[in-house]
């Protein structure tokens, strides 16, 4: 609207008083200050985001192997090698499972917790502050903390289950079974991500006018109906953002599987493979290509979720 309006104004105005405006323009001095104020930030973004991104895209089509110089154009060679490497394709599968488990669990738990926190109650602020703690912890620290829980020889979970006589022998949660390992590792990331999902969804819920619930109850809706027909539809913007941040986090999961499961194929993620390819094998070309694949996958999945879940809401 603004664009159309200003264009219309401009054309009408230029026909009416072109000469005085040109004179004003000639008389106006160029003001460098706004550009100068933006310049540091622009430089910062260009140097630390756009240039590395451009280098990544370009170099992913080159063979960049420190141990095997020189750097030469290789077309889709890096991508072909990645897709023919069974460890990489296995990690693609693992990462897909991380995404599915992580996004579903963190979103569902986020909705449940946000709805719980929607109405004011005593201690709500303290609860929200405590809730944020796992989100504030570094992934490596969380991995180490959870090692003490999942550990198969001396872990807390085995100890509790054994004390309750629910198991006779200690169970191996990590490293043995692929699905169990991925689930156990992803639980740690869900524990980290859910607070942010909760806050994002809670922000959406806080905007819902109370009158809508009153109207729904007057029309005979149950609490469940009100949740389904009022809360969920109106929380969709927040849910979509929460899901997108969960997709980004799970597609790039590194700390938790690396600390809890090492490089084992039962749980190695794509970002772990990027690290191994780039900094162990010193094959930066493949590393760039793998990073690019992760970025493209993140964009596609995120766009899909936004298209599916996001609906603009106006009150």
């Amino acid at each position, binding site marked *: 609207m603004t664009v159309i309006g200003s264009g219309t104004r401009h054309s009408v105005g230029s026909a009416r008083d072109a000469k005085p405006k040109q004179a004003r323009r000639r008389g106006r001095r160029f003001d*460098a*200050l706004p550009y*100068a*104020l933006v*310049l*540091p930030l622009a*430089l*910062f973004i260009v*140097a*630390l985001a756009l240039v590395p991104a451009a280098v990544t895209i370009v170099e992913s089509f080159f063979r960049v192997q*420190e*141990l095997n110089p020189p750097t030469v154009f290789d077309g889709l060679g890096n991508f072909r090698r990645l897709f023919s490497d069974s*460890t990489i394709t296995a990690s693609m599968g693992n990462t897909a499972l991380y995404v599915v488990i992580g996004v579903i669990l963190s979103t569902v738990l986020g909705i449940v917790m946000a709805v719980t926190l929607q109405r004011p109650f005593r201690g709500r602020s303290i609860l929200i502050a405590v809730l944020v703690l796992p989100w504030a912890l570094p992934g490596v620290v969380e991995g180490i903390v959870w*090692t003490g829980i999942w*550990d*198969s*020889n*001396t872990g807390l979970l085995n100890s509790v289950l054994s004390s309750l006589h629910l198991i006779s022998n*200690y169970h*191996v949660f*990590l*490293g*043995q079974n692929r699905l169990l390992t991925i689930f156990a590792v992803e639980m740690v990331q869900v524990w980290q991500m859910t607070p942010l999902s909760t806050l994002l969804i809670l922000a959406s819920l806080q905007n819902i006018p109370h009158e809508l619930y009153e109207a729904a109850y007057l029309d005979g809706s149950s609490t469940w109906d009100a949740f389904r027909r009022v809360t969920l539809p109106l929380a969709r913007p927040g849910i979509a953002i929460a899901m997108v941040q969960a997709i980004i986090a799970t597609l790039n999961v590194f700390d938790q599987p690396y600390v*809890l*499961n*090492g*490089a*084992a*194929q*039962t749980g190695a993620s794509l970002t772990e493979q990027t*690290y*191994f390819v780039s*900094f*162990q*094998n*010193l094959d*930066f070309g493949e590393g760039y290509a793998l990073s690019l694949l992760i970025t493209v996958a993140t964009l596609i999945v995120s766009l899909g979720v936004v298209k599916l879940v996001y609906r603009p809401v106006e009150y």
Partner: protein
Amino acid sequence: MTSLRRTRTVLLAGVLALASVLAAGCSSGGSSASNKTTGVTITVALPTAPPPQASLDAFTKSTGITVKWTNIDWDSLQTKIAAAATAKTYFADATDVDWSRVGQLSKLNWFYPMENYLDTKSLATQMPQISSFSPNGHVIGIPYDASFLVTTVNKTLFAKAGITTMPTTLDQYTADLRQLKSKGVVQYPLNIPFAAAEGLSTYWYQTTAAFGGTILDGSGKPQFTSPDSPGYKAAQWMVDAIKQGLVPPGNINVPDTQAQQTLMAKGTVASTFADYSGNVGSLYNVPASSSVVNQVTYLPTPGVSGAGPNMSNPDGIGIPRQAKYPAAAAKFIEWFTSAQNQADFAGANGPDKVMPGYFLPSQLAGVTQLNDKGKLIGGDELSDLLKNSAKPIFQQGAPSWYPQFSKAVYTNLHAAATNSMTVAAAIKAIASTANELSS
């Protein structure tokens, strides 16, 4: 109006200055090396705590070189070394040269040859493990501690099982482990860290050496493909051990240091075949972290028909090509690896001079001094092993593609232990990686 214009001019100048600083910061970080050895500050980046401040101050007083110590965990440090060298950017004047990265670092020419600065030939007579750092005739790192793999046994638990004569061969050792289990002394007598990590690879190398073999030949070709080969037998022995209940099932996901701390130091297991050379003194005999104080001892490696070799995995220090003050860094390395300082750091001359986490000097004279003063637990055994049994894992130095090879070793052996693949398939996959990388 004039005041406003002046304010705007000052603001504009300030912002442009900030922008130019940012632009300069984002430009090339290359540095030019200086041979100055006095009045300079050098950065030392190692995955260990620094020596006592008093020692560093004494070094500064005697040389005019100030040391800024940066303690970075091993994995992050390797990433920083690679990133800085690739970008040709300065990040430290002296840093870690791990034995496993020697081939890679040497081929990439990322470190200065140490013979340019130190008399490495003389040092070699006193530092048996310096050979692990000299591929292609150039020494690119000086070992600052002596680390090798050694068998440890809890003699109290062995005695409870009626074993008073320590095993000297692998067959006896395996039989003793079975006896410990069958007599119910411990449910799982042997510690093998089966997590997919470097500790599993080095355990296999040590076990292969005990079976009388090597991993790779001089041209990097695998020596373990035949079922009769020591490497194959070692892999089979390790996987059989977990399947037959000699190793705790939970070890499938436990890395080496964690297993040493939570199992061996707690008396849950009775032996670690490939343990770290300093662990008796620095872990098992420390009451705060151990419940087996004075129970664990070093053992000459049980081999096929007698004592086998011990594989060296020492930590080294070198000078990256982008160092600002390589000559000053060399002076520091000379001081840091001197026999006297190493003995001090290991506790020969009182707790004030101890460097946290430092245990065994790389210089034989340092080991002798420490042992003579009775400050080295298991000193006679360790001195003897260091002088006579400690051998490089790869005679020609680790190949440049070692990190890729090691990953193939630990991921496939881990998979074999989880029943995801057979030992034969694991060995085939490891050999295939070695063949591909060495060709």
